[in-house]
């Protein structure tokens, strides 16, 4: 212990008496770490935003009846032809009802499962929005609006009014922003709908919804489940879609497969629905880490150079230390400690700088029509990245210091003393 205190004393004296070089070396690490923190925070913030834009709103599993041709044609079931190759041309899809058969028991079954965070039954109704003599094509989503908000953050995209307003209103509707603009209506107005079967409905606008994706905002609206069932002229066991959110997104794929077999309906999991998003995130992360690593590598070379120079200057000191009884290992430790002190100081400064700039970015206004809920640039302040950055700083400085320190270890004091 005594030994280490002596070594620490020597190291810190070296560093303090060469303040300029020490500061230069530390700043190299500082900028490397700060850049890492800023890049990672900003990139993952952006990733989170983009993922949130689609993934948060997408159910982990979506159950519905898909219209497809029957997989087995009658000829396949006919025994005499079972051995032969059958060709059937122009197969037409089978007529299916769009309601999910036995929806309520399925919902109850799902709600009891531990891995399920929530289940939202939905009725999707095709309608026409009537504005004067013009009819606009559209969809009405009948949902339990409060559940939908809890699980899929719908509230974030309701730019006027709130989910609660809809929950309270019997014949309310939250209209897509594009639709509202086209029909020049706003909150409190009445909108006329006709359904496919020709029935007329009047609903009161209690909110405006803007997802940022024009093709959705131009057609889609939200109502309560009951309202949508009434539009379809159906009773309250009429459900066309079930959206499931899980606690662990990774379970979505196997569970979707199981549900499909168990209930004989179509189940689409989030991964197959949104594969491209994950790829995008992965590549952005890869770029972030590659750039940060390069920066730290440059900082590492800086430290390597400065320590090498220091050791050249300190040849005499090394010889004296060795002559007076410091072992090669002691001398190596002295220079390694110097490298690590540079790493710690530079790293901590880097964390502070990185955090400050991240806060600055977090407060920079960033307004775009596509993302109505975003007012500033998104930044992720995950403490894990700060721990990571600091470890990164320690490891690079240790590696950068190791070679010069090993050289100092093997310096022969006799050669130095003779050389004078």
């Amino acid at each position, binding site marked *: 212990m*005594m*030994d280490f*205190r*002596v070594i620490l*004393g*020597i190291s810190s*004296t*070296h560093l303090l*008496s060469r303040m300029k070089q020490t500061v230069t070396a530390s700043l190299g690490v500082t900028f490397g770490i700060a850049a890492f923190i800023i890049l990672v925070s900003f990139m993952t913030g952006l990733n989170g935003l983009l993922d949130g834009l689609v993934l948060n709103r997408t159910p982990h599993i979506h159950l519905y009846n898909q219209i497809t041709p029957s997989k087995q044609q009658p000829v396949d079931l006919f025994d005499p032809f079972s051995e032969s190759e059958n060709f059937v041309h122009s197969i037409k899809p089978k007529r299916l009802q769009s309601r999910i058969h036995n929806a309520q028991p399925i919902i109850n079954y799902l709600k009891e499962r531990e891995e399920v965070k929530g289940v939202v039954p939905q009725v999707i109704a095709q309608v026409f929005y009537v504005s004067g003599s013009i009819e606009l094509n559209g969809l009405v989503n009948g949902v339990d609006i409060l559940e939908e908000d809890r699980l899929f953050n719908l509230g974030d995209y309701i730019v006027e009014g709130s989910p609660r307003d809809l929950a309270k209103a019997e014949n309310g509707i939250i209209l897509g922003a594009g639709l509202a603009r086209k029909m020049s209506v706003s909150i409190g107005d009445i909108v006329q709908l006709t359904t496919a079967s020709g029935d007329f409905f009047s609903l009161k606008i209690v909110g405006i919804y803007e997802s940022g994706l024009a093709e959705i905002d131009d057609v889609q609206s939200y109502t309560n489940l009951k309202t949508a069932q009434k539009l379809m002229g159906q009773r309250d066991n009429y459900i066309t879609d079930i959206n499931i959110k899980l606690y662990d997104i990774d379970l979505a794929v196997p569970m979707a497969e199981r549900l499909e077999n168990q209930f004989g309906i179509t189940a689409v999991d989030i991964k197959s629905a949104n594969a491209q998003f994950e790829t995008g995130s992965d590549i952005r992360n890869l770029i972030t880490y590659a750039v940060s690593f390069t920066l730290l590598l440059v900082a590492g070379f800086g430290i390597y150079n400065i320590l090498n120079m220091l050791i050249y200057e300190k040849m*005499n*000191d090394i*010889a*004296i*230390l*060795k*002559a*007076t*009884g*410091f*072992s*090669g*290992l*002691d001398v190596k430790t002295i220079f390694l400690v110097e490298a690590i002190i540079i790493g710690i100081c530079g790293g901590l400064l880097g964390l502070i700088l990185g955090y400050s700039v991240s806060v600055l970015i977090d407060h920079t206004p960033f307004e775009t029509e596509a993302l109505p809920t975003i007012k500033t640039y998104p930044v992720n302040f995950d403490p894990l990245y700060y721990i990571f950055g600091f470890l990164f700083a320690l490891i690079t400085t240790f590696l950068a210091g190791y070679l010069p320190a090993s050289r100092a270890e093997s310096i022969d*004091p*006799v050669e130095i*003393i*003779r050389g*004078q």
Partner: protein
Amino acid sequence: MSTVLRAENINKYFREPVLFHVLKDISFSIEQGDFISIMGKSGCGKSTLLYILSTMDTDYEGKLYLNEELLSGRSGSELSKVRNANIGFVFQFHYLLPEFSVLENVMLPAKKLGRKPLAEIEADAIENLRLLGVDKHAHKKAYRVSGGEKQRIAIARALINEPAIIMCDEPTGNLDSKNSQIVFELFDELSSRKKLSLLVVTHDEDFANKTHNIITMEDGRILSA
């Protein structure tokens, strides 16, 4: 009186640039309280011998004993400990750590030894500096004192661990006659009063003549002792 340092048949070769036999069958011993100088022309191998005796150079043949313990063949870190505890050094060039204070320079070997608490080491160091008449510089940085003073500080450092022997390589090599005289008197007093053994490599004939014994070397051999 006991034998402090004993060398038996030491041979040393330089391999670069060509094989060269530097030291040939060197054998001699130093008793406690001896004040011995080694003289000889440049290139006769006297410095080389000193580095072997100091344990810093381990590339030789033969046997070296310190306090009757064999040192030849021990590992580098063991020899570091031996040097730290038993051997004091004074070089021609002052070899202080320039960024450290004079006091720290003197304390460093004792801190490394770690045998005494810090306060006691500091008291010892100040006492040594006082003995050598440089205690007023204790808190200056080492690069700010004069050459003669540096040499005396180096001696104070060599004494801090109460070594068995002090080895000097041209200790008065670049000192004026007044400072050389001061250094000689210090050594003389240490050997007679403290029974410290001293081995000094020197070109300075006046200095050598005043020591107890002169070893003369030529072409890697001891001519007379």
